[in-house]
């Protein structure tokens, strides 16, 4: 950073700062410091002698205000600044280059932090999950609907899905693997997750028909869009970028609208098991239309805040296969 101010450039920059406004010495120092986010922090021992020299040269003058010297540019100083405007442009270019450098450093730094945090939370979450299981087990009859061992198993089975292992760590490694590389999501995985959303939502059966239809359609299109986007992500072609942009716009609007309504129905609201029977997650062939109309026909008043008395998502009993199987 200090090389920026080689070859008389600090002098030039001081003139520039004084051209903008009359300033006192300390103000100049703090401006320089702020400008470089503390990276360049000139000492009074650097600045005051230079101001004095500029004054000797007749480029600046000062007056005492409240016991402090306030420096201002003279006409000669202004002329000097104009004469060297090309140098000033160069300097400013270098200064903004350093904006880029600082921004890069910030980005790298934040990423490191996030990476550390991710690792840390991953291991802590694993611990918490184990403790939770232990607690559940200790509680014994804490949840009569959930046998102890099967409870722990279902916990994990549900989260990791039918084709992931039983290890809770899998959730994390899977998620971070997929989360980390942004666009390079596995096509199959995407499809499966969105199908799962659709079925989960539909089986909650808690929205009016129009809304469910909207969501269905949106998700179906979205799934396709994503798959296409993912396919193209490797070589962000013109079309892909354009599509991404469009999808962004529409998706945001859709998410805003629909996410507000995610969630189970209120207790006592009827849910219909028929929705559940259609909800076998079969990414390859699930027919959204059928599920939609089923849920729509039986829709009750939506209440996004409250859970259903019973969500009949599964055709199966409570077991490891809480997510019925592909």
């Amino acid at each position, binding site marked *: 950073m200090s090389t920026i101010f080689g070859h008389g450039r600090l002098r030039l920059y001081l003139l520039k*700062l004084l051209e*903008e406004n009359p300033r006192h010495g300390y103000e100049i120092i*703090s401006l320089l410091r*702020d*400008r470089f*986010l503390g990276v360049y922090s000139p000492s009074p021992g650097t600045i005051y002698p230079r101001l004095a020299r500029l004054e000797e040269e007749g480029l600046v003058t000062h007056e005492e205000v409240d016991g402090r010297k306030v420096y201002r540019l003279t006409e000669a100083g202004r002329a000097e600044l104009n004469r060297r405007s090309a140098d000033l442009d160069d300097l400013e*270019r270098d200064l*903004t*280059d350093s904006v880029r450098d*600082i*921004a890069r*450093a*910030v980005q790298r*730094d*934040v990423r490191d*932090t*996030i990476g550390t*945090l991710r690792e840390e939370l991953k291991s*802590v*979450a694993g611990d*918490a*999950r184990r403790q*939770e299981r232990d607690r*559940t087990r200790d509680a014994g009859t*804490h949840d009569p609907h959930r046998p102890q061992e099967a409870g722990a198993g279902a916990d994990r089975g*549900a*989260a990791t899905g039918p084709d992931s292992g039983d290890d*809770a760590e899998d*959730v994390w490694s899977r*998620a971070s693997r997929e*989360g980390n590389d*942004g*666009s390079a*999501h596995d096509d199959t995985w995407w499809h499966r997750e*969105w199908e*799962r*959303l659709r079925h*989960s*939502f539909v*089986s909650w059966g808690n929205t009016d028909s129009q809304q469910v239809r909207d969501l269905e359609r949106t998700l179906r299109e979205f799934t396709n869009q994503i798959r296409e*986007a993912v396919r193209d992500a490797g070589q*962000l*072609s013109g079309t*892909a*970028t354009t599509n991404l*942009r*469009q*999808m*962004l716009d529409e*998706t*945001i609007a859709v*998410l*805003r609208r629909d*996410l507000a309504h*995610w*969630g189970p129905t209120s207790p006592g609201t009827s849910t219909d098991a028929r929705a559940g029977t259609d909800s076998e997650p079969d990414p390859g062939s699930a027919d959204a239309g059928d599920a939609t109309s089923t849920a729509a026909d039986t829709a009750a008043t939506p209440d996004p805040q409250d*859970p259903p008395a019973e*969500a*009949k998502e599964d055709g199966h009993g*409570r077991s490891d296969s809480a997510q019925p199987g592909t």
Partner: protein
Amino acid sequence: MSQEPETEGIVMARWTIDQPTVRTLDGIVALRVRIVGGHVNILPTDDPVTFEVSDIVGEPILATQEAGILTITYEDLTRDGFMERLRPSRLSGYRHVSQRRATVNLRIPKDCPVEVTTASASVVAAGLSGKTTLRSASGDLTLDDVGGEIEVSTFSGALDVRDVTGSLHFTSANGGLAVAGGQLSDLSAKTGAGQLLADVDVSGAGRVRLATVSGDVALRIPAETSASVELRSATGTLDSAFGLDRQDQRGLSKLRGKVGNGIDPAHITGTTVSGALSLLRRDPEAPAAIPEGRNGQ
């Protein structure tokens, strides 16, 4: 090389920029950037605003200064409805839009409201305290030491945040959110498949709402936090380092309860469809997730 400003009236200035350019401006009170690819870097300053545009590929950048608003965009994208105008039916007029790239470096007053929209350009912003609005399709976004009101929407871009204060709203289809350190009075994050990670303090009476479809959620809060908590998931695992009541039904698991005894409890809700959801505790002696590398350049 930039053209000389074409002054229209007193406050309007325009620059068409097709070569690397640096400008210093006074009197900027708001910033708008809308570009396609490249980078946008924003840092705070007490000085007059500086902006630099470089690495220009494709159409020249148009910068305007009007009524204190600095706008950096393209000639054909100047009006509102950037996204609207890019729908396929209207795209024929905008040739090679997606090939456009530029690096935009800015220094602005820290309380200056900022609105940045990009297609694939990444955005880094640090030290801001006004209102910060970022939208990106696929660009990755980084915020450091940012406060005030923060609104971020992405399609697939991730948002990394460190040392945040105030309110943070994040909406994404595919992008994840990670928050390391800071204190929020309002954190709302919704994503389809992205992960949500947050290690933050929650202000008294603050609100935290986290929702995903398939993305995992991990929220770590200080052990001494007071809050009412409700975590729900259709098929995802729920766990908590605080003692919460568990309710399991077919297709819906819940963890709910109170944490701490403070008089001004926060409200924390988490909802996923299939994502795992963890509420974690940061012990008082443990440092917040502030890392080795602050200013380590």
